[in-house]
């Protein structure tokens, strides 16, 4: 601490001021670094390079550093000599204060008269010292950089950044399709989100969690209409591939491995009954719990010698359980020999049809047996760690209960790991089903053609300047086509091709209840667009539509938009119900009067009851759910 004597007390004031100066300077210097790091983090977060749970907190966390730097410097002591030098330099005191402070550090007895005179002289000059003038507050030069970086941080944080740059459509891509964002109703999205939440609760491994996270991101993008259909399907496919890449059979192998162990245990043995039951059911979670309880029993005691022996024997049996592979190995060998023998015969002479059929059956049988052998081997490997712990526990039971308890605890941990694997496989499976449902839903919407897309087609047809296809209306009354739905199609496309879309979608005349026809070079994925069934078309006709303009199958439309105007006409064939017939029929049996939404709910409730009661096999329940999701009433 500086000299606190009244004559040189100014040094204490100056030292304090120097500390604050230093703190301000340090804060400014560290701020530059902290802001630079923050800018980088915000940028990475916004570009989705960095994925964290609380991106804002992470990005702003470096801003605590300046405060820390300021505090450290504010509390770091300052040598009074340094403060004195600043005052001496400013007031041109020829080091009077600094020298006096040094002389004052000596005991008074050691001071010479000249030293004392120097101290007195300094004290005299100290009265006229102005600390504020000598140590004025100055803005650190780093502040300019701090301001620039802060502005940059705000800019980076506020300017919208595209989440992912969508694949640029190629020059030849149909523009209508490129603008066609994949849409899902809020209802569908809510259902998918709920399902994903349930899956997420089961996800125990990183791979499963990543899958859920990716699915959620996909749903977000769909909800915000950031994806066109192609991109949406591409993302779906990528996610499905990612899930499929994970070992789908691992969970099943675990269950089978556990069952094979459980089968070897005595179900009547009281000490290991719960464990045996859980293993037989292939339930790793329950087995882990049972094994932990056994471990506690061993550690806390008391346990009789008989119980000890029984438990040891039961665990020994469990440890020695192995899938029966010997018989299988013999079968594999035999099947392989037979196949080789028949192949050898085939090389010597041509086989008759019965023999060839037998050869194919034998080859399939050999492949099946080999696969089964591999499966059992994998099953054995899955249980290897667990059985090792169980075997160790069985050995330790005879010597040390605590050690045996520890062995079982490790076994329980191994079972917990297997349980996690099972759960994650289940969640993966569930996620795959949800993905499939999503794909089906999008596919369905595409086949029906969105309202927006129809609007665009109509607008395009009008702007194309084609002739009003009066005959298109007649398609409603046309011959009894097989579906009759295409009457509406005709109404849609009454403008003919005119200048036509550049590629991919043919504007089909309404005659004959025609089908939307793809152009020869149109991508298959574009067929059927605009095929929304019309109101009148709901009534089935009595026959297939015929007779469309053959020119429609002519040359491909120029991708650059140089199109050929084609006129099309609907033709009356006399088949199919006329409008009057339709109205008459409706008057007899009545139109549907109850809204579909009201019909759907009780049906779906009933289906759920059945599912809960377990009347539907587990493997098929998802199909039932999927079916009802697909026929869910759409949002208006």
């Amino acid at each position, binding site marked *: 601490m500086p000299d606190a004597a009244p004559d040189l007390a100014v040094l204490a004031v100056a030292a304090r001021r120097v500390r604050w100066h230093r703190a301000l300077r340090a804060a400014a210097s560290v701020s530059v670094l902290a802001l630079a790091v923050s800018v980088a983090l915000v940028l990475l977060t916004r570009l989705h390079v960095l994925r964290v749970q609380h991106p804002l907190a992470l990005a702003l966390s470096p801003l605590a550093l300046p405060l820390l730097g300021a505090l450290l410097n504010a509390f770091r002591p300052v040598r009074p*000599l340094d403060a004195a030098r600043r005052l001496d330099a400013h007031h041109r005191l*020829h*080091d009077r204060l600094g*020298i006096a402070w040094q002389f004052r550090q000596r005991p008074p007895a050691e001071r*010479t*008269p000249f*030293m004392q005179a120097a101290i007195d002289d300094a004290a005299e000059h100290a009265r006229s010292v102005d600390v504020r003038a000598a140590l004025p507050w100055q803005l650190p030069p780093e502040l300019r950089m701090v301001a620039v970086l802060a502005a940059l941080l705000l800019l980076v944080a506020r300017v919208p950044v595209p989440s992912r740059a969508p694949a640029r459509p190629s020059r030849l891509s149909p523009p209508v399709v490129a603008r066609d964002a994949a849409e899902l109703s809020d209802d569908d999205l809510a259902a998918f989100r709920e399902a994903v939440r349930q899956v997420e609760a089961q996800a125990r491994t990183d791979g499963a969690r990543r899958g859920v996270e990716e699915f959620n991101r996909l749903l977000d993008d769909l909800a915000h209409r950031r994806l066109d259909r192609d991109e949406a399907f591409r993302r779906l496919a990528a996610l499905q591939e990612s899930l499929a890449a994970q070992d789908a059979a691992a969970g099943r192998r675990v269950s089978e491995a556990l069952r094979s162990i459980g089968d070897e245990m005595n179900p009547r043995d009281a000490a290991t009954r719960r464990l045996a039951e859980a293993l037989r059911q292939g339930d790793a979670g329950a087995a882990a719990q049972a094994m932990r309880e056994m471990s506690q029993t061993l550690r806390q005691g008391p346990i009789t010698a008989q119980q000890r022996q029984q438990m040891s024997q039961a665990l020994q049996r469990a440890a020695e359980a192995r899938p029966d592979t010997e018989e299988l190995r013999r079968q594999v060998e035999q099947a392989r020999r037979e196949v080789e023998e028949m192949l050898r015969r085939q090389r010597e002479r041509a086989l008759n049809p019965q023999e060839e059929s037998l050869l194919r059956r034998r080859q399939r049988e050999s492949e099946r047996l080999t696969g089964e052998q591999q499966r059992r081997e994998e099953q054995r490997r899955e249980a290897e760690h667990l059985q090792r712990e169980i075997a160790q526990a069985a050995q330790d039971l005879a010597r040390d209960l605590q050690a045996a308890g520890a062995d079982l605890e490790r076994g329980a941990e191994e079972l917990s790991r297997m349980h996690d694997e099972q759960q994650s496989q289940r969640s993966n499976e569930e996620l795959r089903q949800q993905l499939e449902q999503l794909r089906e839903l999008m596919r369905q919407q595409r086949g029906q053609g969105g309202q927006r897309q129809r609007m665009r087609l109509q607008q395009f047809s009008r702007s194309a300047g084609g002739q009003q296809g009066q005959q298109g209306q007649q398609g409603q009354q046309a011959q009894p086509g097989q579906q009759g739905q295409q009457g509406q199609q005709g109404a849609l496309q009454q403008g003919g091709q005119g200048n036509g879309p550049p590629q991919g979608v043919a504007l089909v005349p309404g005659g004959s209840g025609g089908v939307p026809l793809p152009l020869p070079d149109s991508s298959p994925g574009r067929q059927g667009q605009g095929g929304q069934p019309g109101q009148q078309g709901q009534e089935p006709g009595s026959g297939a539509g015929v007779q469309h303009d053959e020119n429609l199958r002519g040359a491909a439309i120029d991708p650059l938009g140089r199109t050929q105007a084609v006129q099309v006409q609907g033709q009356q064939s006399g088949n199919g119900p006329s409008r009057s017939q339709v109205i008459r029929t409706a008057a007899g049996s009545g139109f549907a009067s109850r809204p579909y939404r009201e019909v759907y709910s009780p049906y779906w409730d009933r289906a759920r009851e059945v599912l809960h009661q377990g009347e539907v096999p587990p493997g098929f329940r998802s199909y039932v759910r999927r079916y009802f999701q697909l026929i869910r009433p759409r949002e208006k």
Partner: protein
Amino acid sequence: MASKVEAGATAPRESVERFQKDLAAVRSEVGRVIVGHQGIVDGVLTCLLAGGHALLEGVPGLGKTMLVRTLGRALDLQFSRVQFTPDLMPSDILGTQVIAEDERGGKRFEFQRGPIFANLVLADEINRATPKTQSALLEAMQEQSVTIARKTYSLDQPFFVLATQNPLEMEGTYPLPEAQLDRFLFKLHVPFPKREELHSILDRTTGAAEADVKPVLDRARILELRALTREVPVARSVQDYAIRLVLATHPDEEGATASVKRYVRFGASPRGAQAILLAAKIRAVMDGRFSASADDVRGAVMPSLRHRMILNFEGEAEGVKPDAVLEEILGSIKPGA
């Protein structure tokens, strides 16, 4: 432990004030004859009060001799002047044994004192004498005594040699060896007078009037002042600064600058640090302060060290001036670091 001689007699403040007053009187008297050269006068007085000797370097005709002569008159000291020439012998300076005849007709050797036996000796153009003669003088400067015929004669105090020399590149000169240069406390460069100063010089020296210089300080007072300057304390930080400056003149030391590393062969000796501190003390008292400061040290560096640094071949060949090297050192070594 510091002596309390002066403090016991007079308080430091009064002592310093009297010191300033005496010095001001000397300056005033010298100023009656010498125009300008205030720095040179202060440097010479510093050497006198520090107990050292001064070497003045400058071309002929700048008033070096006049300065010393005037100083001798103002100080009321015994003054002698020796004009160094190539044929000057050591005995011409120190004195010699001569045969003297007493009243009864007997003959004996008697020591005839040379001009060195004075309080203020002006060794004019010292680099014109041979090294042998130079050595005779420099030995007396160091030992403050003269030994002739196995008999040692002490020189009266204060004993102060003020040597002048022409720039080394002039013909007919014998450069002083480094070891002998080290014995001068200061080496002062006498600058050429400015235009206004020349006017004053001409006015004073070409007219009929002759300035009358009165003695203002006697021997006893000079010795008191010498003792007083030794009383001045130096803070550890200031002394450390002086040491760092001296160490920085050594090319192998950590604080050596680029010029030192490139052009200097040997740096200043510890005598250089002593000279700096003594001079700093005197500067402080001259300024009315009681302790030497870093500024005093900086002010004493040039005259104290410029003749103590030995340049290497590259430095000599490049014509590097020691003053430039010292300027760089002062720029890089800061007090309190």
